[in-house]
């Protein structure tokens, strides 16, 4: 399933798994724009939690790699029954939690049962709803039975929300997480930083870094200053793309530009009486100059998209031509739809792609005779008014979850797209296992929403990072929200 949470719209995590060379410098300070509210990835939704703890402190049965592939982690290997309902995992031997206790099948059972329990506060509870039973066969074997076959179950287990925790320490995990990862938690200065130290008794390949500090800087200017002043060694989700040319020109730094799973869209309330007419939505699409937005808001970083799908995915269809920038056509469409003096609300969440993009879109819409009333909202307000209250005409948001086109099949989702045809396509997709069928269905889904001009499709969010030029092993792209430091090291 697909996840789209508020925090994750900022989330620009990184990956690149390289061999770690031992270097003289063994500590790193990594900048992050948002501070995690707590450090328990199984109890909180914020992407920032995973960005600190994923792969560093906590590990799951499987894990994402920098290239987006899912590989075994705590599970050495697994077998799947022919009906696709029973998964049997063999665990690594000799894995211990940071408190010294050993990790075994009971911990796995505890973690998964806890996540799917009635009173669970796991933000991705639905990942686990397909599980009907978890059994600890022996200390190193876990058997999981599903109620229905699920082609993406192994991927689900790689999510940060599915990491393995110990029952003895879970109550304090929010402030003192205890996992099995290569780093142990040392301390958290709320509002400033989280410090990690190398786990000397790590079961896997030991990491090169002895200490790692995540420092939280929300202000883009402060981020720029801290980076320039050398206070921060790497800022994978660097929030001020306008300054990247300066870093590029400076030999001290390396700019890392990668892709994210974030489709940045002009979300349109399809049930709004002003926008229920497809001609008006089409007019909006033609009124928008994507390149101007990418240049103006992201300073050139970003790939135009014509539908809700990541361009780096093999099944991506480039449909940008279908909604090419054509203000005259937009005006004609509006005339055809018989609307004049259209005035729309444009509610913008905090990230700069939304705030800056919003101003540009407002200007572009004004060109074709559509007035917008901009309201800059905080996330909490955005959630309340836009996401839950559906009280909006337009908003700009980046949907950063991988493969999340399925949200269009939910007619109650905030943009309220209700197409029986599309829903049928997705239902079919869920049952399809043949790769070419899946590919066909995914492409059909992309085409459908582009044809219906559900939302304005702007660009795929780039992951712009800056790092000290001597650091290697940082993730380049963000297949999931993480700052995996396991492969990071300094060169001389």
């Amino acid at each position, binding site marked *: 399933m697909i996840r789209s949470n508020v925090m994750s719209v900022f989330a620009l995590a990184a990956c690149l798994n390289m061999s770690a060379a031992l270097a003289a410098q063994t500590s790193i300070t990594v900048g992050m724009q948002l501070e995690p509210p707590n450090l328990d990835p199984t109890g909180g939704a914020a992407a920032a939690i995973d960005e600190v703890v994923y792969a560093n402190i906590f590990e799951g049965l499987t894990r994402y790699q920098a290239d987006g592939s899912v590989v075994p982690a705590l599970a050495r290997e697994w077998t799947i029954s022919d009906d696709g309902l029973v998964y049997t995992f063999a665990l690594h031997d000799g894995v211990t939690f940071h408190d010294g206790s050993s990790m075994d099948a009971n911990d796995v059972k505890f973690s998964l049962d806890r996540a799917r329990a009635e009173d669970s506060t796991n933000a991705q509870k639905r990942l686990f709803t397909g599980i009907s039973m978890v059994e600890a066969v022996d200390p190193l074997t876990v058997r999981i039975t599903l109620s229905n076959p699920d082609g993406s179950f192994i991927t689900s287990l790689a999510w940060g929300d599915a990491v393995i925790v110990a029952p003895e320490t879970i109550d304090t995990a929010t402030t003192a997480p205890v996992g099995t990862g290569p780093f142990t938690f040392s301390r958290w200065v709320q509002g400033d930083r989280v410090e990690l130290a190398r786990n000397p008794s790590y079961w896997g390949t030991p990491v090169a870094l002895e200490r790692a500090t995540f420092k939280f800087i929300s202000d883009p200017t402060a981020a720029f200053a801290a980076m320039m002043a050398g206070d921060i060694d790497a800022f994978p989700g660097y929030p001020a793309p306008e300054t990247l040319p300066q870093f590029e020109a400076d030999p001290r730094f390396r700019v890392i530009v990668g892709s994210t799973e974030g489709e940045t869209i002009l979300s349109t309330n399809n049930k709004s009486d002003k926008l229920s007419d497809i001609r008006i939505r089409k007019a909006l699409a033609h009124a928008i100059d994507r*390149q101007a937005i990418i240049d103006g808001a992201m300073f050139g970083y970003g790939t135009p998209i014509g539908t809700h799908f990541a361009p780096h995915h093999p099944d991506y269809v480039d449909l940008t031509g279908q909604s090419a920038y054509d203000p005259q056509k937009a005006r004609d469409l509006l005339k055809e739809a018989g609307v004049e003096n259209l005035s729309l609300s444009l509610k913008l969440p905090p990230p700069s792609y939304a705030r800056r993009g*919003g101003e540009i879109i*407002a200007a572009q819409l*004004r060109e074709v005779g559509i007035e917008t009333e901009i*309201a800059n909202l905080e996330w909490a307000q955005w959630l309340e008014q836009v996401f839950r209250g559906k009280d909006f005409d337009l908003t700009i948001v980046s949907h950063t979850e991988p493969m999340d086109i399925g949200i269009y099949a939910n007619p109650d989702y905030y943009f309220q797209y209700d197409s029986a045809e599309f829903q049928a396509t997705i239902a079919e997709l869920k049952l399809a296992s043949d790769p070419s069928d899946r590919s066909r269905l995914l492409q059909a889904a992309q085409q459908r929403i582009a044809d219906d001009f559900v939302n304005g499709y702007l660009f795929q969010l780039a992951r712009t990072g800056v790092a000290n030029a001597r650091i290697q092993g940082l993730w380049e792209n963000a297949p999931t929200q993480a700052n995996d430091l396991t492969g990071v090291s300094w060169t001389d």
Partner: protein
Amino acid sequence: MSRIRHMPRALLVGLAVTTVVLAVALMSLVWTPHAVTGVDIAARLQPPSTTYLLGTDHFGRDLLSMLMVGARTSMAVAILAVGLGMLVGVPLGLSAAAMHGGWLDDLVMRGNDLVFAFPVLVIAILITAVFGPSAVNAILAIGIFNIPVFARVTRGAALAIWTQDYIRAARVCGKGRARISMEHVLPNISSLLIVQGTIQFGLGILVEAGLSYVGLGAQPPLPSWGRMLADSQTMISFAPQLAIFPGLAIVITVLALNLAGDGLRDFLDPRIRRAR
């Protein structure tokens, strides 16, 4: 000893600059060198030139035009906020002085102390969080904190007037407290209120800049100096004009208002003191 008679000159400069800023702000209603609502990405971040006297911002908008409209935003917010403070604060202060020692006086003074005890910026942020960021709510947030200022200044000055014999004479004539407040007290503290108003005006511009700097002032596309600063901060090293000119605009305007306020204080009535 050479003495520099600086006050009248400062007053003149202050008033002149304030007038110019006001005039520019008003002029922006009918004319700016370029439109400020249009976005022209191709023309972004241009250095000052003959076409764009102060250069362009990250959306290709003319900085000079933005500053002109920004002046309007800042001035309007500050004037209305101070107006709100006066409109509520002055009657409160007048009544408190008229009822000196009574429950109303107590209530007004306690209320004042209470409001003063709250951290201004934090509450302003809260207010905009409650009602949503907008110029109107910025006016409200700044205005609320102007109320106790004017209430206090008015009360202090009015109490001094109430001890004058002409107030006693009026009371002997059977005039009521409300009438005396309007007829005798208010006209005699008006110059003090003008001075305080000028100073609060300058402060209002600073607070407005701070609020819009954190994104809680006037909303785009309406330009405001504070947001212009916030937007351009990261570009200061390659487009310094974007961060320098709005900052200078704030400094110059506030400076002019403060000079005018101080000058007016000395000019209108050398006896009045800054009320605290």
